């Protein structure tokens, strides 16, 4: 047995079916062996970053299915490995388990600046959960098992195994043995505590029953622990509204009567106002990111905070908790639901208030969606998403890119399917959508998958059209083309006096581009054509590109300015009323 064989044996043992990657000198032995074995479906990406996002897609989309799969990407050393870095950092920010296997130069030449040598472990260490470099073929199999255990246990995250070329080819001794079934990694420093302690649960129950104006938060942890159903039941039982983080979306149907929609920077008025006035926040599986809280010293000042979170280092990091429950969300909800103390409270005044918050923007939005065009006669993104939602019944899998269209997709699609929303959130990596949608399609082939990008982000990984072509994948591709890096343009409109530095963008003929890859294409310029075009994409068996010509001046509202508090929330379009400006416009969008 050789290192490469043991590597692949371990992957197979762990249920890996797809390997996304790109070959090169330092990983050739493994690719060669993979081809001989024929155990895996190899998907060649057109850029290693694409491979990283494809493997994320597999992991994210299969979380909720009976057969969880860890996404695996595999590349050569040096530039191949470095091209993975963005996708790995993205997975780390979003707690997505994945495994990156990189070839490394032979041990004999490591640290000599050999051809295509990069210090992969050194580069990846701060952007992933764990790095490994097995120096002996006899360590390889065990390393893979431990790496996958670390990636998938507790809060998920990416892991990297850097395998020197000589170790790939090295033979292990005849007496080599490894029992995958009985293997348990010895990790004395690995903290994993899924079961909630009794005492904080008791305190939480008391706070919940006592509260007059509670809000429940649904974060990524709800999706990751498959606890959407439990959260819905719990919320119904205690009659508490639910606000969602970007990654909590789709855990509970978006149109559930208790739903307040998304919270935070581009959250709904009802979610953000309710949080401002709440006396209790009950948060499940989230990290109180700055995009969620806005200015921390103004955040939910009168509220007690119950924080249920698997990662203890997130508790009390940004927001002080009253009750900390360091445990798995599913298990915690399971115990809470069985608690006889649980009481239903009508909270009539609170619901009346929430209803009034819901009305603040409802009519304006309804009218805008109906009109479907901006002042210049170009399409509104929110109307496109709304129509998509209607035609698909809110049941499809949505993979947005990063920008205005992403926030529109978060807000205006009526998510009905658990774990049906896959977004680059913490890192906000433009270009994530197309490759991630490919991974999602492999994980859930029976469901319809929509990659929704802006004109900017689409061009960051447009080369993956080649992968879609080669794999004959049925991924529906929407390009919402507003001719700008729209989200940044929105900030420029609001905070930079409308100076559009570095945001206007010329695009290629997307029709010709699609044609080059043999993918059908349709351009949509009028409101009447939105539905028929979407329907054509639905009816077409296979990939299709739809380009929508969108209004560059459409803004996603409300918006809490970066560094501002919820008090500063902008709810009116610029022009219709002078927007409040924030003094802290130095942050990146």
């Amino acid at each position, binding site marked *: 047995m050789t290192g490469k064989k043991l590597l692949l044996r371990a992957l197979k043992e762990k249920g890996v079916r797809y390997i996304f990657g790109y070959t090169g000198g330092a990983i050739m032995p493994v690719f060669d062996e993979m081809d001989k074995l024929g155990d895996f479906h190899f998907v060649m990406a057109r850029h290693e970053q694409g491979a990283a996002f494809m493997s994320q897609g597999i992991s994210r989309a299969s979380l909720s299915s009976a057969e969880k799969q860890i996404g695996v990407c595999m590349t050569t050393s040096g530039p191949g490995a470095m091209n993975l870095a963005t996708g790995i950092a993205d997975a780390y920010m979003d707690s997505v388990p994945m495994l990156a296997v990189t070839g490394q130069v032979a041990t004999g030449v490591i640290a000599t600046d050999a051809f295509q040598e990069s210090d992969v*472990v*050194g580069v990846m*260490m*701060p952007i992933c959960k*764990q*790095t490994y470099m097995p120096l002996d073929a006899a360590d390889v199999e065990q390393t893979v098992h431990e790496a996958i255990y*670390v990636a998938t246990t507790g809060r998920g995250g990416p892991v990297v195994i850097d395998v020197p070329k000589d170790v790939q080819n090295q033979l292990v001794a005849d007496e080599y043995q490894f029992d995958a079934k009985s293997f348990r990694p010895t*990790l*004395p*420093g*690995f*903290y994993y505590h899924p079961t909630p302690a009794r005492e904080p649960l008791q305190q939480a129950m008391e706070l919940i029953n006592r509260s007059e104006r509670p809000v429940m938060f649904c974060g990524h942890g709800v999706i990751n622990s498959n606890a959407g159903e439990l959260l819905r039941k719990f919320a119904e039982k205690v009659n508490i509204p639910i606000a969602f983080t970007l990654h909590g979306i789709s855990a509970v149907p978006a149109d559930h009567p208790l739903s307040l929609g998304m919270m935070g920077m581009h959250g709904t008025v009802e979610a953000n106002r309710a949080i401002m006035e709440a006396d209790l926040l009950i948060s499940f599986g989230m990290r109180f990111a700055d995009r969620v809280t806005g200015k921390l010293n103004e955040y939910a000042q009168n509220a007690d905070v119950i924080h249920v979170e698997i*990662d*203890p*280092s997130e*508790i*009390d*990091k940004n927001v*002080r908790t009253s009750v900390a429950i360091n445990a798995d969300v599913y298990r915690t909800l399971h115990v809470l639901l069985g608690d006889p103390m649980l009481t239903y409270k009508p909270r009539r005044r609170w619901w009346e208030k929430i209803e009034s918050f819901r009305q603040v923007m409802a009519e304006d939005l309804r009218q805008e969606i109906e009109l479907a065009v901006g002042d210049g006669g170009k399409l509104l993104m929110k109307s496109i998403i709304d129509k998509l939602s209607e035609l698909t019944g809110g049941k499809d899998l949505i993979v947005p890119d990063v920008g205005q269209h992403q926030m529109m997709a978060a807000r205006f699609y009526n998510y009905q399917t658990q774990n049906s929303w896959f977004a680059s959130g913490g890192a906000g990596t433009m270009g994530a959508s197309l490759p991630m949608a490919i991974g999602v399609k492999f994980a859930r082939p029976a469901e319809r998958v929509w990659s929704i990008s802006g004109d900017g982000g689409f061009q960051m990984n447009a080369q993956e059209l080649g992968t879609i072509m080669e794999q004959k994948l049925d991924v529906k591709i929407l390009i919402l083309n507003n001719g700008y890096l729209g989200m940044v343009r929105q900030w420029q409109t609001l905070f930079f006096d409308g100076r559009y530095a570095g945001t206007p963008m010329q695009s290629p003929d997307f029709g010709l581009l699609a044609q080059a890859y043999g993918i059908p294409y349709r351009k949509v310029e009028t409101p009447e054509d939105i539905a028929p075009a979407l329907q054509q994409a639905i009816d077409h068996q296979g990939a299709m590109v739809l380009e929508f010509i969108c209004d560059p001046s459409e803004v996603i509202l409300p918006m809490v300015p970066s560094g501002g508090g919820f008090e500063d929330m902008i709810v009116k379009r610029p022009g219709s009323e002078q927007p409040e400006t924030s003094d802290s416009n130095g942050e990146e969008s």
Partner: protein
Amino acid sequence: MKRRAILAFMLDRPGVLNKVSMLIRKKMYNVDTLTVCSSRIEGISRMTITLQEDDEAKVDQIIKQLEKFTEVVSAKELDTDHSYWREVAIVKLEVDATHLEEFHGRYNFEVLDQKSEDIHILQVAGSTRRIDAFLDEVGQEHIIEIARTGVTALEK
């Protein structure tokens, strides 16, 4: 700013020190002192880090994030009331033997070597403040070279 000591036990593996120091850099601290040694248990190292921070919550954050590393077995803060913080300094001095006599009994030092009439190499042990006081009293102008270990600490 308040000086803090963080004590951590971790697997004795390559890359662990790298991780710890990267975390501290990411949190934008400048390490005052850092000492690593083996512990009572084979394969486990003991690390003492001192840095400046007034905010209790921020220190807790560092500790929690240290504990998050799979290699870190435990981490906690040691405060001066409940632990001993000590370091050792080796000092090369140009000073009269009689001048040194004055400090005997008051400071814990040992003469390792006398190179000539007035060149001495001393070893001084004690708390950071104690060593500073000794060096001040002897007179900084007499010091040719000094090597200090940095703080190591033990709970009472």
